[in-house]
């Protein structure tokens, strides 16, 4: 099954929760949707599941318009962020419940149910808790039951809304790998929503960045990371996110340089040629924290704002003339707030954004 969403819009009263969203989720691939709270991620899932009705646009399952297809006949496995477990049923029975529903009557015998449930319990390290009631589980364990109940099905599409948000770091890491392997082997598409852009990058075949109901960018994780479509996307992706430095373009010999806080960064030839007509204009330079270095003798002048030593690297926050930026550097020495430093740009492929619109140039 391929799910295509075309110019989808959803309005709640005066508020458009989604506007003009178009995307395609293909079988055996994970479409990861990321964006801050309020972006419209959950609304998108609810529209695909048929729990909400679109205000504009349409949803197609293998080319068939789903407008008249009720939720029960879409075959969508949807993991709700709120879990929605049956309090009187054991973990095992909660997970088995979709396999016993009237819609799939006769498809699974007890042995098949036991086998399918055992597989997802093992995957999520929940085997020992199969007989517990939901009331006796922690929040993270409840989330894993809801995840199991979604994975146990053979749906037309799997929708995961923040599936691993409340699990500890080690289990989250393990499940990212296991779920990715499992879902990419399935003959159906998976839509995985999360506000954690790193999580989205790590599981996605295709990454969708959604902000305030609008798609900002669709691409592979590498494309979005290397070439964010605008400053809003740039602010979301990376740990820490890309630095956005205000400055101006100026001619430098045959080429073009970016000037800020008393420093000049020559731009690579192809980029310079493309931006030649903008010489003198105000722009924003996007540079990753690991593409900046603290130098003794050259670079922009600033002062240390904060210092965070992380063992394998340090993050030094530096205040320049107009911006606060983050430098990710080897853990060579510590810095005190207020200490003067110079920052050199060592980016091989910097990106430049329009100062007014924020769009990448």
């Amino acid at each position, binding site marked *: 099954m391929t799910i295509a969403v075309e110019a989808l819009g959803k309005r709640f009263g005066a508020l458009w929760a989604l506007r003009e969203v178009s995307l395609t989720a293909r079988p055996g691939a994970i479409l990861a949707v990321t964006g801050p709270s309020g972006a419209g991620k959950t609304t998108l899932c609810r529209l695909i599941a048929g729990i909400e009705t679109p205000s504009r646009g349409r949803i197609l399952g293998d080319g068939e318009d789903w407008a008249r297809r009720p939720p029960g006949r879409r075959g969508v496995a949807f993991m709700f962020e709120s879990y929605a477990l049956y309090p009187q049923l054991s973990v095992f029975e909660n997970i088995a419940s979709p396999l016993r529903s009237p819609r799939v009557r006769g498809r699974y015998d007890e042995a098949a149910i036991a086998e399918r449930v055992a597989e997802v319990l093992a995957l999520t390290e929940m085997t020992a808790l199969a007989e517990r009631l939901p009331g006796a589980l922690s929040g993270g364990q409840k989330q894993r039951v809801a995840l199991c109940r979604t994975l146990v099905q053979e749906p037309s599409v799997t929708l995961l809304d923040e599936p691993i948000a409340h699990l500890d770091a080690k289990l989250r890491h393990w499940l*990212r790998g296991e779920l990715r392997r499992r879902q990419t082997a399935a003959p159906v598409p998976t839509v995985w929503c999360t506000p954690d852009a790193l999580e989205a990058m790590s599981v996605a075949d295709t990454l969708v960045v959604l902000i305030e109901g609008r798609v900002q960018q669709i691409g592979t994780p*590498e494309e979005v990371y290397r070439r964010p479509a605008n400053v809003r996307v740039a602010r979301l992706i*990376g740990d820490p996110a890309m630095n956005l430095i205000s400055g101006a373009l100026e001619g430098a010999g045959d080429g073009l340089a970016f000037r800020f806080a008393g420093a000049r960064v020559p731009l690579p030839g192809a980029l310079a040629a493309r931006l030649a007509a903008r010489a003198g204009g105000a722009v924003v330079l996007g540079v990753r924290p690991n593409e900046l270095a603290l130098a003794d003798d050259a670079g922009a002048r600033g002062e240390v704002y*904060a210092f*965070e030593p*992380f063992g394998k690297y340090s*993050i030094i*926050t530096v205040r320049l003339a107009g911006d606060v930026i983050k430098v*990710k550097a080897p853990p060579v020495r510590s810095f*005190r707030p207020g200490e003067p430093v110079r920052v050199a740009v060592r980016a091989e492929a910097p990106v430049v954004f329009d100062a007014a619109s924020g769009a990448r140039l």
Partner: protein
Amino acid sequence: MARVDLAAVWKLYGAVEAVRDLTLACADGTMLALLGPSGCGKSSTLKMIAGIEAVSRGDIRFDDRSVSALAPGARNIAMVFEDYALYPHLSVFENVAFPLRLRRAPAAEVARRVGDALDLLGLAEVRDDNVRRLSGGAQQRVAIGRALVREPAVVLFDEPLSHLDADQKIQLRAEIKRLQTMNRLTSILVTHDQTEAIAMADRVAVLNLGVLQQLGTPDELYARPANLFVAGFIGEPPMNLLAAEAAAENGGCVLRGAGWRIAATMGDGPGRVIAGIRPEDVGVTAADAGGDALGTVFFREPRGDADVLVVDLDDGARVVAEVAGPSPWRAGDRVALAFPPARLHLFDPESGRAYAGAAP
């Protein structure tokens, strides 16, 4: 500000020992983090320092003065909560001014001290806004301003970042650290997130099941974890912990695990050990180059400037490696891994304790 000392402190809830024999100190003007998973005793400890919970046994002192018997109001502490706990109907200014109004401070003094706090926190421009209009990060800055304006002896931060989106978390983490350093605030931070503890605190106390596991600077905890719990808790992705057998061979010592084998130097002679190696210390090369272990990439997690590779070794163990990104490796690739002996941490599998001198 004050120095805080906990001397052999216990917290008992009936038969449950929530905190067991905890002794630690937070030096004047520094930040101490209490770090651990849920149920480790960090919140009970914070509540005893605040005076919200009674100390079952032992003593808590601020500057050599016992506060164990004092009511919360008499301890001169300020708290910053995870849900901000602001007054939603009041402006930014009035929220910060609230503790001073309670004390009936003169208007001129209120204006001066609140003005200073708002400047310090970058809130001057929104001083008259209703707090409900602010982002989560800005609301938490208001809560910090309200804590500081009282000029407390100790500031207690209870999971201050846990309700924020990732980007705001990264911003505010640096802000709190700067504020604490510049103003030399004696502060105690409670968190379950090792990244926050490492980023903000001068010293970190790692707790598990009510017992102190290790107390040290972030560097010490990272470079020399005292036991398996700390080794697995500090660092992201966590340290690889692999069962191994140490044996004498050809006059040297060899460490052998499921699917790998290396020459190592260790003082304690042959026997079973747990070998720990951090993901960024694992070398990854093409399989035909040879290494300490051969395996297949199971999963590649791109993180932008780094790729985290989960590698299944041919004979069983699963190893996580972190390499510079974007890397050429993909799921299914055959790779050779190297475990540099100098980067190994060795632990006793029975007690879980680190062997002295085993780590760099």
